[in-house]
């Protein structure tokens, strides 16, 4: 009981994730800044920002639905953290596991997006509403390729459980190379999920101010930002567990190092993509997802079906 509580609240749960979130945010900002030939923030900047926001006054628009407006960030925050417990991080068995947990993780990762929509919509600001609609429109575009490519991997492993998948790939060490295309697709989809350039359409500053976040301030904004950072880590861990399933059978210390390297790799890749592309328009984004990503994801699915039928 005490151990579970420790696991949930401290390691590898809430506290550990928050600490990671600061580190990841710092690395992302620093790397992004260096790519743009800037100096970038000092290491404590994300913590300083967080403390500043917590200390700030919270302003809720008079017309907003207060309950929905304030609950949305918390929902997003807890959903991201919950998803983390089901992902094998540095050992084959995650904290919690059952058959079909991969579906639950994907579902839990969708909740922050929906929470953002609800928060944006109920803040009643025009900009936030446009942002909210864009968030959901975009969700329908990137979720499909993401789901197909993740499930293609699960199909090859013949399991709906993340830990069994990890076990399968540990038994077939080089098979993960087959799924590289799926990894690329998921990475792009993850950019959409995290609303980062070129898919930062729902919070496009020069068009709709800050989109769904326009009316958020103080603690609520701090939680929102934190949940996005955590979502980044959880998303990166999911990609690492599904597409880069090696090093899980090592000793805990070595496994932990491999895990950190994998997460950093994914996070820095995301920053790189953010730095080299311009923001797309919503119609272009949807076109791109449905016309490029979905066929590629289906090709991955087909490839895995054939592989499975013929070789394994």
């Amino acid at each position, binding site marked *: 009981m005490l151990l579970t509580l420790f696991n949930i609240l401290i390691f590898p749960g809430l506290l550990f994730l928050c600490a990671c979130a600061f580190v990841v945010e710092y690395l992302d900002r620093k790397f992004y800044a260096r*790519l743009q030939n800037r100096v970038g923030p000092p290491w404590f900047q994300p913590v300083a920002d967080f403390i500043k926001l917590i200390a700030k006054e919270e302003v809720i628009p008079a017309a907003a639905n207060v309950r929905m407006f304030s609950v949305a960030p918390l929902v997003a925050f807890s959903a991201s953290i919950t998803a983390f417990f089901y992902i094998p991080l540095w050992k084959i068995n995650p904290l919690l596991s059952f058959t079909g947990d991969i579906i639950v993780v994907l579902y839990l990762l969708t909740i922050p997006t929906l929470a953002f929509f609800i928060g944006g919509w109920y803040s009643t600001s*025009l900009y936030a509403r446009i942002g909210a609609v864009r968030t959901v429109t975009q969700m329908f575009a990137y979720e499909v390729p993401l789901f197909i490519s993740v499930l293609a991997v699960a199909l090859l492993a013949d399991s709906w459980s993340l830990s069994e998948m990890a076990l399968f790939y540990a038994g077939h060490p080089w098979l993960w190379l087959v799924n590289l295309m799926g990894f690329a697709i998921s990475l792009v989809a993850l950019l959409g999920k995290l609303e980062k350039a070129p898919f930062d359409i729902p919070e496009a*500053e020069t068009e709709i*101010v800050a989109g769904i976040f326009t009316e958020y301030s103080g603690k609520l904004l701090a939680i929102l930002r934190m949940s996005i950072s955590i979502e980044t880590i959880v998303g990166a861990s999911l990609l690492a567990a599904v597409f880069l399933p090696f090093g899980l059978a090592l000793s805990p210390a070595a496994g932990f190092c491999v895990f950190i390297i994998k997460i950093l790799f994914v996070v820095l890749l995301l920053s790189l993509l953010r730095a080299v592309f*311009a*923001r797309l*328009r919503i119609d272009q984004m949807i076109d791109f997802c449905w016309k490029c990503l979905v066929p590629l994801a289906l090709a991955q699915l087909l490839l895995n079906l054939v592989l499975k039928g013929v070789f394994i």
Partner: protein
Amino acid sequence: MHDSHDFKIPVGPQHPALKEPESFSLALKGEKIMGVDIRLGYNHRGIEKACEERSYIQDVYLIERICGICSHAHSTCFVQAVEEIAGLAVPRRALYIRTLVAELERIHSHLLWLGVAGHEIGFDTLLMYAWRDREIVMDILALLTGNRVNYGINTIGGVRRDIDADEIQQILKAMDTLEERTKYYIEVVTEETTIIERLAGVGVLSHDDALRLDAVGPTARASEVKRDVRSDDPYAAYGEIPFNVITDNHNDVYGRTVVRVKELMEAYQIIRFALKNLPEGPIEVKAPRKIPAGEAVSRYEAPRGENVHYVKANGTENPERVKVRAPTLANVQAVKHMLKDRFLADMSIVVAAIDPCFSCTDRLISIKNLDNADTKIINWEEIHSYGIKWYAERGVDFSDLNKRFAERMGNR
């Protein structure tokens, strides 16, 4: 947004896409813009009226402050008109120096624009790169004139500062660096897929519409309208300098971007030519304090397009009338046209593509005094002494600064 037929979204007076206060009210249907309502005038400072109450030489500095980006454009345009009325023959060296500063200003303005354009389409890396390189030209401007903006180089009858061999070397070196960087930007703009996706086919202004709506500057030139005051109605030293008027037939934001980056390349050539052929001689002629009665219209190709000043003199120390038409005002109709049936996401880049400068467009000095909430008018002397006091309280003493400056000038 099922009931969104009359979804009106305010963009401005305060909005991140606009760096200055103007209001665009967009009627949206989904993401599509059905109508645009533009309200200008938030920045009207009554500079034209203020000019009538000041002497010509004070006006040069006031006019220079119409706009921070194209300050030299406005001050040159104004002094040209005054010189024409007074019948002053400005020394050739002064004309070359004006041209030089004008082109340096164009470089800084176009690089600034490139950065802003990058930001508007969510490509901040381009913003950071372009503005980093813009520092090079800002440093050169500071070297030549002592200021990064509002150079104060013009005076009636010539320029106030000469340029020496060392400065020429530094400019040439900077031009080489900038040329190399510009080549890289041309490559980025013409080859990077997401940029092209966001720029091509956006904000279309056909050749006929550009003519009909009197578009000016790069906006017109990107629709193949060969309209450039520098070659049509040469002023300063442009009549003696060979250069190409850059046009493009894309008619869209992409075309405007291409025109601007190519104009950068032309600007480097103009600067090199001007420095190579810089005539010797004095840099100013003495201008009378009282300008004889008369009128003159002066045109100038500012980085944003044609700048028109009309000055009427009545034989006294103060002008009778000064009229300023900044390029952005001429392009407002074109923007209205370009935004129709476009997407909300295109709004900011379409507006940015004319390189709007609303402080140029609007020209009353009205200072809000926060202590007693109502608006208070501060006259010129008060604001002057206030400025000196403010800095003195913070340890900056201008009398000392002036002395040191005089010493430095004496050393040269």
